[in-house]
């Protein structure tokens, strides 16, 4: 079936993408680099959850994607506030 192969391919590509974002998270020369790597990992995780929902035919997982997108956004905004406050003090 076409969708099954597509989900396997997409999951493989997303795993590589997650690993590459992890490389930037570990290496990132400054704190904002690490924050955007973390943000990217959140977005990739939303994609992985969506692909997994298709692969297991469980649309309930899309709710998890909503929550994860929300948490990733809040985390990024909180980090940005922290970086800026630390710069001004």
């Amino acid at each position: 079936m076409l969708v099954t192969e597509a989900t396997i391919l997409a999951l493989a590509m997303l795993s590589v993408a997650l690993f590459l974002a992890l490389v930037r998270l570990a290496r990132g020369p400054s704190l904002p680099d690490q924050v955007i790597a973390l943000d990217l990992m959140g977005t990739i995780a939303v994609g992985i959850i969506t692909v997994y929902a298709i692969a297991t035919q469980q649309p309930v997982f899309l709710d998890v994607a909503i929550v994860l997108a929300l948490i990733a956004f809040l985390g990024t905004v909180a980090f940005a506030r922290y970086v800026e406050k630390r710069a001004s003090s």
Partner: protein
Amino acid sequence: MSDMISALFLVIGAAFMLLAAVGVVRMPDLFTRMQTTTKSATLGAGCTLLAAAVYFGDLSITARALAVITFLFLTAPVAAHMIARAAYFIGVPLWNRTIIDELRGHYDLRTHKLIGHPPHRSNHKAHLGKEVKQNPAEDRDR
């Protein structure tokens, strides 16, 4: 038919997110890295969510997927803007082959507010003979 569209969107979305991850490793400085994570990764996540919407073909699931897409497309620019602004204030270095930093001198580094044009920068509309208004935020009490 919907299987084919769904599989196509899945692979396209995963490819965009993979490109974003490659870009975040390969790009030379923070601000160029940020454009891959913001645009490409958001488009990729949007494509996979569209694939889910097409695959399940149910109204409530489609609405849910569209809600996630709308949320991602609204929040990604905001988060990227806040991180870029904070990074600019703490002086994250630009790429050594950067040609121009048009924002230099426009920020008051103590209060983090925009000030007008820096004095060394010539007004590029002055040759039109019109009086060009300076930044109105300059004297506004914010």
